[in-house]
């Protein structure tokens, strides 16, 4: 009896270090210290010097933060009074900001520490006076075009219905506004990919069954009919899709609704946050860990940073999302990568409660240098999925693992959010390990186009016995690989 107890205790000890691994072992979160008298509800962040940031806030302030990595950063109010700016961009000597009413640029021409010149770059849309009419951006593409997205109102419109809500706008360097894509709902993040193409994130709700990341292409209709009447106005690059059927499965919508664009990635509700917002590609070439070239997306509800890998199949960008780092300070609004490969995240939980503990926060995520054992990338291949790993596994290790996959899709409809439709479990073939031990081919029967393929991996450990840090991945399969 005594012997048996001892051996159980030993077994527990042997596993303890592995079970104790946490995200924090690999990615450290460091607060940028915020003084008590600064309300830093971060709407936009930009690095303007090795140790200097600019942060704009939902209250309309633009703070300059010097020595931001120190225990006592210096805050100075560079500008104030902007109307809810939700994005900053330093570009060609100016600071650009997307505010409710305009894309503007500003600078401190006499170098006295206060912005003094404010210029309207584009203001070709209007605001009805609804709190939900936020604008996001700006990001700039290789041709010098600015990208912004306009949120649609939600509730009363005191100054009456206005044009161009729920659109993605391309603004040329000369200030011409090109209404590029419509049907957006709450497009809280917009970013230009390393290959120069714009993407945006949208929050689930009416006509947006699940939160998503979508590629922006000229003429797209992304599903929300609120502002699509503007498609008939001069300048629109989108053809009016006609009446949108209320209650149609997403894969069908693509063939039925003119111009309807399916997303690159759906973020299943509560499994991968609730309200995706700002995002940034890791272009650090390894300084941020093993995920170079992948996308990191913040969530305003779950106070977490999620990871996304993309691939282009049959001309459509699609891919998978993975949990990455949760328990951040507050609901995330912006994510930017700065010097040294750190990811800077900031936000506010005002108006929508968030899982973070603070009403506002600005934090640095730094790779500790320790390599996590993760599914590096889930890719669609003919007959199944390829899983690339950050570390090798052995054949014996693979044999102990269990794989489970189900798929489901969503409905396009007027009601708020969509449940998962037509869920099915997939029959899986025996996984095959590549020679280097870092890739697994998972044969899957009957892949379904237009469906999220949700993968769970249990019991997989690397050659040192370290289990996977995250065991789920969600692949949005829009086009079947051939």
């Amino acid at each position, binding site marked *: 009896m005594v012997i048996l107890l001892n051996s159980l205790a030993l077994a527990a000890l042997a596993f303890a270090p592995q079970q104790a691994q946490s995200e924090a072992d690999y990615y450290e979160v460091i607060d940028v210290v915020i003084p008590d*008298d*600064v*309300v830093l509800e971060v709407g936009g962040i930009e690095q303007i010097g090795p140790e200097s940031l600019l942060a704009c806030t*939902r*209250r*309309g302030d633009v703070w300059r933060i010097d020595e931001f990595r120190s225990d006592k950063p210096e805050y100075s109010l560079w*500008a*104030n*009074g*902007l*109307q*809810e700016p939700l994005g900053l961009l330093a570009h060609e000597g100016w600071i650009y900001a997307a*505010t*409710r*009413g*305009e894309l*503007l640029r500003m600078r401190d021409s*006499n170098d*006295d520490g*206060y*912005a*003094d*010149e*404010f*210029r*309207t770059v584009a*203001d070709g849309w*209007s*605001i*009805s*006076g*609804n*709190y*939900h*009419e936020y604008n996001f951006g700006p990001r700039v593409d290789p041709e010098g075009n600015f990208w912004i997205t306009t949120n649609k109102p*939600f*509730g009363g419109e*005191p*100054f009456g219905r206005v044009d161009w809500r729920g659109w993605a706008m391309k603004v040329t360097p000369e200030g011409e506004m090109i209404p590029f894509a419509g049907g957006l709902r709450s497009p809280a993040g917009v970013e230009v990919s390393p290959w120069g193409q714009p993407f945006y994130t949208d929050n689930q709700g009416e006509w947006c069954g699940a939160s998503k990341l979508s590629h922006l292409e000229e003429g797209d209709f992304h599903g929300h009919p609120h502002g699509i009447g503007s498609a008939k106005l001069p300048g629109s690059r989108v053809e009016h899709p006609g009446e949108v059927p209320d209650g149609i499965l997403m894969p069908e919508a693509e063939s039925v609704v003119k111009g309807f664009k399916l997303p690159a990635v759906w973020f299943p509700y509560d499994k991968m946050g609730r309200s995706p917002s700002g995002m940034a590609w890791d272009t650090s070439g390894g300084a941020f860990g093993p995920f170079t070239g992948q996308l990191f997306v913040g969530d305003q509800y779950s106070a977490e940073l999620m990871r996304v890998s993309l691939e282009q199949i049959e001309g459509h960008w699609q891919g998978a999302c993975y949990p990455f780092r949760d328990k951040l300070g507050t609901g995330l609004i912006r994510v930017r990568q700065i010097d040294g490969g750190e990811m800077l995240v900031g936000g506010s*939980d*005002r*108006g*929508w*409660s968030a*899982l973070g503990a603070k009403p506002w926060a600005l934090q640095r995520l730094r790779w500790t240098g320790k390599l996590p054992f993760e599914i590096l990338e889930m890719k669609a291949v003919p007959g199944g999925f390829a899983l690339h790993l950050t570390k090798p596994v052995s054949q014996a290790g693979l044999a102990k693992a269990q794989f489970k996959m189900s798929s489901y899709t969503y409905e396009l409809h007027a009601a*708020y959010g969509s449940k998962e439709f037509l869920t099915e479990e997939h029959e899986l073939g025996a996984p095959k390990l590549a020679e280097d031990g870092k890739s697994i081919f998972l044969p899957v029967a009957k892949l379904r186009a237009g469906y999220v393929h949700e993968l769970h991996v249990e019991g997989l450990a690397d050659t040192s016995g370290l289990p996977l840090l995250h065991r789920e991945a969600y692949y949005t399969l829009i086009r079947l690989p051939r």
Partner: protein
Amino acid sequence: MRRAWFAVLLAGSVPVAAASQADRVAGLPSAELLAKQSSCTACHAAEGETAKRLSFDEASSLMTIGSRRSESWIQRYLESPDSPHPRVVSSNPSEARAESAAIANFLSGGLQPDFVPIEVSAADRSMGETLYQELGCFACHEDNFAGRDLAAGWSIAALSEALHTPGEHPVLAGRMPDMKLTPRESLAIAAWLLRDQQADGPEEIVPGLKYSYYEEQNFPGNGPDWEALTPVEKGTTKTVTHELGTRRERYGLVLEGMIKVETAGAYQFWTNSDDGSELFVNGERLVDNLGTHPPQLRESEAVTLAAGWHSLRITFFEAGGGEQLKAGWSGPSIQRREFLESELAHSGSVPRPIDRGLVATDASANRRGGALVQARNCEACHQVESQSDFAKPFAALTADSSGCLDSSPSSKVPNYGFDASERELLVNLLRNRNDLQKPRTAYEEIFVRMNQHQCINCHSRDQVGEPSAKVLASFVGADDLGEEGRLPPSLGDVGAKLKEGVLGHAIAHGEEYRPSVKARMPAFRDVDKQLSWDLSAAFREVDRAADPRREPVFEPEEAKLGHQLTGTSGGLACIACHGSAGNPSVGVQGPSLSEMAPRLEYDWYVRWMSDPTKMRPGTRMLNVFGSGKSPITAVHDGDAAKQIDAIWQYLSLGDSMPLPAGLVTDRSSYELTPIERPLYFGTFYKDASARVMAVGFPERVSAAFDLHHARWVEVWRGDFMNAKGTWDGRAGQLESAGGSGVLAMPDGPAVAVGVGNGDWPAADKSAIKMIGHDRDALGHPTFRYALRESGIEVADGLKPVLAAGGSDLIRRIELRAARPVPGTQIQLVDGAEVKRIPVAWTTGPDGAAKFVVEVRMSW
């Protein structure tokens, strides 16, 4: 109260020596006061000025006393030797008992006092005890309601209502000033005063619903498990509302009770909430309005309910952003509407007035009681119009100790219990009654009125009176400001100190000018409409110097020096103890700088500033100018008189004064307060557009520019703006000017072409192209836009300039065009007047056209 006043007088709180001295110079004010308090002329009719001077407070009508007081209470009130009422029953105890019982039987008329059940908690009583102490109730009620037996005489609901609106109460009207209590404060004080009443009876139907209030970090969209949560606060509410508890984000409510169905039939229930809510009737969930959403209506299917009470439960949570909870129903003869207060109730046990038991009376008691009321002439005081010839007119009274003034009065007359010195005072008054035929002198007015209305229970004044040592010791305030931070101010010199209207306003409406003094100044306007006029005029006549110093003429440069002197950079740091315009000082809280000039007489201010220690020994005010020289030598070479004047000039800007350097505004509040530089604020703006940039200048003047229509909307003085509607929760409210003295700019654009004398065009977004704006080195704005059709570029800027009574704004408009544009006009406000100005273009060598106009807006 009357009795209480006697006690004060007899205890010598009114300095008899001072009063006697006063009597010699100005008649017999003490005796006059005593005659008023004793309502002598109710029985002994007086005429002319004498009647006016000896006028008294009419006592409450006896017709309705039965609906206010129980028969047993009336009986004891008349019988008790401690009663504050003049004794109208026999001095023989057993006769007194029989007479009191008879009168009580007659007066109560078989009525039961009105009773509204109301629940109170230990927290209510505790709050009431604190308020009673802090507000200074004890100053007038020093006798602690001796002889009144409040717990037997009043219900909590009735006392609470009487305290809230004393002017509407049959007994308190004309006696008790308005303490400006909120309904919550009134209830708490009533609960404290009636703390002997216990809620130990059986459960009964009590109006309103019980509520539990919860605070949580997160609420799931489908609502929490309420059973698992612990409420932060519990209470009752008369209506279904989200405005309970303290938070407006991340809170929850559960309302429980009953709903009254008058007519059996089919009913539909609804809630309209932001965020989620549910409604249960008889334990069944009829409305599911869960989820996180803007205001959303959800209505139940029809349910059939029998007539009578049904249990009702409503849950509500607010995760973030806007909040709302409404609920109601529709049914037989009820159109869809919110629940009425009368339909909601819960069961509970409530405190009731204590029943002291009734002395048995026989069938003849009622008749005997009626006869006694007539015989004792009760109606003389209690219902003046029926004054009879019961007693001799005042003019015919003999000046000796007879009748009421007899040392042991007969049972035919009321027994006031006068002592020898009081009797002597009144006999003396009768001897000198001719003096009462002249109007009171200013001094007499002050003496009589301050005593009559018990001003002296809180405020002292030489030769008039002062609060008792016990009362003085009981006032509550900031310890670190000494007695000045705790005591109601002395009224010596008040007529020289306060401006006329300010003094009158303080008496009529009460005021809380000293932030650290907790005692509350009541409003006397409902007690006596004339009081504030009479008393403030008398104070000024007695106190003001014959030839007061004249106020200096306003000089903006002097005001700027005064601004510097009050702040921390190169100044005297007045802000260590004095805040301004709603912003607290950085240390202890003395009176606010912005409220000084509008209140104080300049002459008094100069005397005070020159040597405060001399004027008020022991004051905490720094005596910086006492030596005639200021420690700040960089301003007027340290000349004290000149600096005192410079500060006055600055103070004279009142609510529109630029705030002194060093004042710290509260960032956690939503009040926007520019101090060093202008503040900008982008917001939705009422009656303008959803794209407005407002600018607040440190000079306490502000303006709003509509970026959508490219025009100034309005300018104003005082506070800039409150950002709550734009910064709180999901926000998105329409904001408006925060200050006062709003001057609207004329409708339409500032610049128009080809209008002539015709109608000015309306603002039109499509006619303009916004270019942006500049903020100069001081942060002053110039907005820039172009007229699309004519190509004219407009630069439209504002800067503030200090002026007497508040800052003005200088507006500069500069037009540029490639070539002159004929027929261009500008519409603007010059002074306070709307004007159209024809544009006289000047051209440069390249033919480019330019025009500049500058106006001063002063309103």
